């Protein structure tokens, strides 16, 4: 990862990175950061507007919106990230093995993936909740079970594409072990693809979690979650539209930051997409002068 410094030359990427890390830290240290108890009800403060004690106002039960947002980071961001990491991890292992060894291994693993695909995702989630009970951890378990096959498919395609390259052939001719070839050659090349696909599914997972919370199957009522806050606001959409703003804007900003960041990460990791710096351009010019003999 010696190319990471390219990432922070991009201002937007740096800003997104700071925003994401701040969010994560605030989520982890929620009890110390949040100004109020997120579950404390003040019926006299229903839909109260912004005040010094309640910086983002109060919701329909008079609870502190800011504190609820902060506590909501945990299920909405932290748990989703962990779930994503697990499913991408399983998918990557399966995808690498299938894509690299091909033939029978590939056929076997991909048929398993096909079987996983034949279960409709939402129905599978509902079935798991039906068996294991209501709760966010069961939804996340269902997500892992469904999503890994999808990641395996995408990562396999990317691995196959690169494992036929001639630098892999050369490495094989040197007698390098398969594991080392995967780690040294194929992982860095496929990493941008993996990052971009997982970031795009991150936002859809956040939305799905809130969808299940809305159905009452995910995060349970007094606990805060961004999607659930939106749903609570939805009930008063026409009389108090401003209640929607806080969770809505937070979700949009965070998901955009993730997307910007991964986009920049992809560019930073790929030497071919790195913009040519000033010193570098000078080097190119020199080379052009020195190598006039060579045509192509």
């Amino acid at each position, binding site marked *: 990862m010696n190319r990471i410094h390219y990432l922070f030359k991009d201002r937007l990427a740096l800003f997104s990175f700071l925003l994401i890390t701040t969010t994560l830290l605030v989520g982890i240290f929620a009890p110390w950061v949040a100004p109020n108890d997120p579950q404390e009800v003040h019926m006299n403060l229903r839909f109260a507007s912004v005040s010094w004690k309640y910086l983002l106002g109060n919701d329909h039960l008079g609870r502190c919106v800011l504190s609820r947002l902060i506590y909501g980071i945990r299920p909405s961001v932290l748990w989703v990230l962990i779930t994503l990491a697990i499913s991408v991890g399983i998918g990557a292992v399966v995808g690498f093995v299938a894509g690299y060894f091909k033939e029978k291994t590939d*056929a076997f693993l991909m048929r398993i993936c096909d079987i996983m695909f034949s279960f409709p995702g939402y129905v599978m989630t509902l079935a798991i909740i039906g068996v294991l009970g209501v709760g966010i951890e069961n939804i996340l378990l269902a997500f892992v079970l469904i999503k890994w096959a999808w990641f395996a498919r995408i990562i396999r395609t990317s691995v196959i594409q690169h494992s036929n*390259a*001639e*630098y892999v*052939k*050369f*490495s*094989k*001719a*040197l*007698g*390098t*072990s398969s594991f080392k070839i995967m780690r*040294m*050659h194929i992982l*860095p*090349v496929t990493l941008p693809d993996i990052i971009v696909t997982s970031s795009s599914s991150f936002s859809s997972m956040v939305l799905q979690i809130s969808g299940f919370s809305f159905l009452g199957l995910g995060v349970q009522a007094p606990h805060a979650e961004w999607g659930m806050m939106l749903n609570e606001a939805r009930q008063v959409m026409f009389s108090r539209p401003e209640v929607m703003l806080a969770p809505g804007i937070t979700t949009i900003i965070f998901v955009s930051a993730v997307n910007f960041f991964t986009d920049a990460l992809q560019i930073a*990791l*790929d*030497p*071919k997409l790195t913009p040519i710096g000033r010193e570098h351009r000078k*080097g*190119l010019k*020199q*080379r052009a002068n*020195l*190598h006039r*003999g*060579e*045509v*192509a």
Partner: protein
Amino acid sequence: MLVVDQVNKYYRKGGMFSRERQQVLNNINFQYNLGECLGIIGESGCGKSTLGRLLLGIEKPESGSILLHGEELVKKGTGKVAMSAVFQDYTSSINPFFTVEQAIMEALNMKPGKRKLKASKVDYYLQHVGLELSCRNKYPHELSGGQVQRVCIARAIATESPCILLDEAISSLDGSVQIQILELLKKLKDRDKLGYIFITHDIQSAAYLCNRVMIMRNGEIEEIVNIEHLKDVQSPYARKMLEMIMA
């Protein structure tokens, strides 16, 4: 001496449960003396590249053996590379995420030894193939086709293997660069006593570089001749091929 003895290779056709096979190499027998340059000539699809992959040990033959001094070719982890390679497609022959230095270091790292010592060897190999030392920290997409191919040659000789397999190594370059690379290969052959197995479909470049040529057709060896006797080939196919070039 490298001995290829009754090598057969099939590829499976059709789907998962198909038993249909296509024979790509049929009973290949030849000997290769270390230090000589053997050209393998044939039209597309005649099995030359498959034979190349077998020689490199990337794939295994279905039957028959390929032995170097009576031993199996590839032994993992020993750091000894029997045969090194330069491939055709210079756009994918170096990992796009590797600098020139890293690419050459990969070959050097196969052998035991101090990392620092190896890093100092990179410059030596770059000069050896006529590249500027400023290329060291460049990525392959910043180099021209001829330069990438030179890096590949440097990487191949850095393995210190006695023989280099050139699989259409100059075919994707344009005319004048082809000649430069051929001259470099010839120079290295004379200076370092390197041997080549030169897979190509271009008889002229094979005639320039090789001591012997092997003409292949449909997975079989048609004829092996010394380059001095190239005019006197016996088999009708080889004759026809030569006539087409002379005309």
